[in-house]
């Protein structure tokens, strides 16, 4: 057991695949040794190419669907986790963590109470806080959210990968990688989001001066602007005292701070993050939470769904295995005369077994490999759609779970296909020859 744990993860997974396939490999060795059934197998494959093709397609589709679903689910999980990666901790007014996370990380804002300037300053001036970004939601441009924040957050979010330059004026903007504006574009944001957005509510123009690299999160579609301008556009104070009107970014004067629904906090270290969470978790005043934890709670709830899905996949695979078996019985009927001929000519039973089994194995292996490819393709297409719709970068990949599933399916069906092969041997040669 210690030996097993000492293996690298890839080593364990590879060994599992080998262990799953080992029984079939042993059978293959026993059935095929010293025989050359391949020319005949090729002949049979070609003779019944249409039936074989349909058979392979059925296996490929059913394996592909199962694989695709599992791969997609994992991709979605990794994608959402990746999207939340930059959001170590969020401080907001007490309420639903899920709602706040959806608003701040996934830019699905809803009406939430605001935090005032005193709290913001307390967070931002905390010695263990690196970045504390206020967020200002509410406007959009051509469906892309226009979000007010501070320059430090844009730098942090993009890891300083900014094409063009940072804003220097309240009405300059930085575009996300997938935002519908380019450097140099001038736009007027609409008030609100989606169909209810009012394009004529504002008249102030923004100029896009920079564009950040792809983050794999919904922030890629966002247009980021100085939060001062968002407040100003909505007729609010801009966070700074009149004598400090020219200032852009913190520190803010609590008296002129209109409020923020959420503060994205980056602490100096992981222990600091935990310390800050307890410090800013205050009944009826503030709530502090880790989006990563909210997501894993969500995954845990969805874990049951995943389990149900896995069982469904397994049941489907078993049904497919059963129909594969039935199909092989029917297919082997198609060439019982050729097989009877071989026995009449003096072929040992093992040779006939080898022909039928190799034939079945060719169909099963082809189907399973195509299924793996199809599953990857399905997951890739679904991922692209999800990425397009949500801007959460979901990447399809075939993981060990899928490979193990396919290996188990393949091994089980390969062993089961000995049954139809064996049943062929039980037909009397003479009656088969004359049929």
């Amino acid at each position, binding site marked *: 057991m210690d030996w097993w744990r000492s293996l690298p993860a890839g080593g364990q997974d590879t060994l599992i695949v080998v262990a799953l396939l080992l029984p079939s490999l042993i059978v293959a060795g026993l059935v095929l040794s010293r025989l050359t*059934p391949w020319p005949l197998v090729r*002949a049979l494959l070609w003779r019944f190419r249409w039936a074989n093709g349909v058979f392979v397609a059925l296996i490929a589709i059913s394996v592909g669907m199962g694989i695709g679903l599992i791969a997609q689910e994992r991709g979605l999980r990794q994608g959402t986790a990746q999207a939340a990666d930059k959001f170590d901790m969020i401080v907001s007014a007490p309420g639903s963590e899920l709602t706040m996370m959806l608003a701040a990380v996934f830019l699905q804002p809803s009406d939430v109470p605001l935090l005032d300037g005193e709290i913001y300053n307390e967070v931002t001036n905390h010695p263990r806080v690196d970045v504390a970004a206020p967020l200002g939601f509410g406007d959009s441009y051509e469906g892309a959210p226009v979000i007010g924040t501070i320059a430090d957050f844009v730098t942090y979010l993009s890891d300083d990968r900014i094409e063009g330059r940072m804003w220097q004026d309240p009405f300059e903007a930085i575009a996300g990688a997938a935002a519908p504006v380019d450097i140099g574009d001038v736009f007027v944001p609409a008030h609100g989001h989606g169909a209810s957005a009012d394009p004529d509510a504002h008249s102030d123009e923004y100029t896009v001066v920079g564009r950040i690299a792809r983050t794999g999160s919904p922030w890629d579609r966002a247009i980021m602007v100085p939060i001062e301008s968002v407040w100003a556009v909505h007729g609010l104070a801009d966070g700074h005292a009149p004598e400090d009107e020219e200032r852009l970014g913190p520190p803010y004067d609590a008296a002129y701070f209109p409020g923020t629904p959420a503060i994205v906090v980056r602490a100096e270290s992981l222990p600091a993050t935990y310390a800050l969470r307890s410090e800013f978790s205050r009944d009826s005043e503030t709530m502090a939470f880790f989006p990563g934890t909210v997501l894993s709670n969500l995954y845990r709830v969805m874990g049951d769904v995943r389990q149900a899905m896995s069982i469904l996949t397994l049941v489907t695979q078993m049904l497919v295995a059963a129909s594969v078996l039935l199909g092989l019985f029917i297919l082997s009927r198609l060439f019982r*005369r050729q097989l009877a001929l071989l026995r*009449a*000519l*003096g072929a040992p039973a093992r040779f006939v077994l080898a022909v039928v089994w190799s034939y079945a194995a060719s169909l099963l292996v082809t189907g399973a490999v195509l299924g793996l490819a199809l599953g990857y393709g399905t997951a890739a297409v679904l991922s692209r759609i999800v990425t397009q719709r949500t801007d959460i970068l979901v990447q399809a990949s075939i993981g060990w779970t899928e490979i193990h599933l396919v290996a188990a399916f393949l091994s089980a069906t390969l062993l089961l296909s000995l049954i139809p092969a064996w049943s062929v041997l039980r037909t*009397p040669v*003479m009656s088969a020859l004359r049929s």
Partner: protein
Amino acid sequence: MAEGLPLTVRDLAVSGERGRTILSLASLDLAPGTALGVEGPSGAGKSTLIYALAGLATRVEGAVTWGRTDLLSLGPEARARFRSERVGLIFQDFLLFDELGAEANAAILASFTPRTGRGAIRGQARDLLDRLGVPRAARTVASYSGGERQRVAVARALAHDPMIVIADEPTAALHRQAADALTDDLLTAVRERGRTLIVASHDERLLARMDRRLRLVDGALAEAA
């Protein structure tokens, strides 16, 4: 060179699926190198007899002895080995693998016989195809004429140099001219090596060239010709 095998049949009885006796033959002795024609109306048991002599019949009693081998006392695997070493079989409708070429069909035994003999089988198959005038083109036998196909089948039956050749209506699917040509080829191949030939047939021209004839009616010997 392999020795010819004398055939001895004693009290052979083959029953059908419902237990009814469909063939009975009290006694038959055949010297090595004899060509035996089995004739009789359809359903008389001609095929049953020759398959029984090849060790292919089920529900069979009595003794079929080739040389020192009591075929019916052997299990299916040993009988198969006996056929793959000693017996060449030819069928009415050729039973070739249509997707394979002439050579691959003629040398099909090389796919399951011991490795050491495979080269000899392939070489013999090629020689036979050449001698029988079958084109050894790369194309599959599906495009061959009936006569050519049956000659491929003859080459297959002889490629492992068996001393026993058993043929079930070998000319029935061929037109007259091709049937006569095949009869010539088959008899030449059999005679030159002193092989025993047993043919079930309706074809009078083929039967006329046999050394002995055996007539079956309703599963029993009618007369020896």
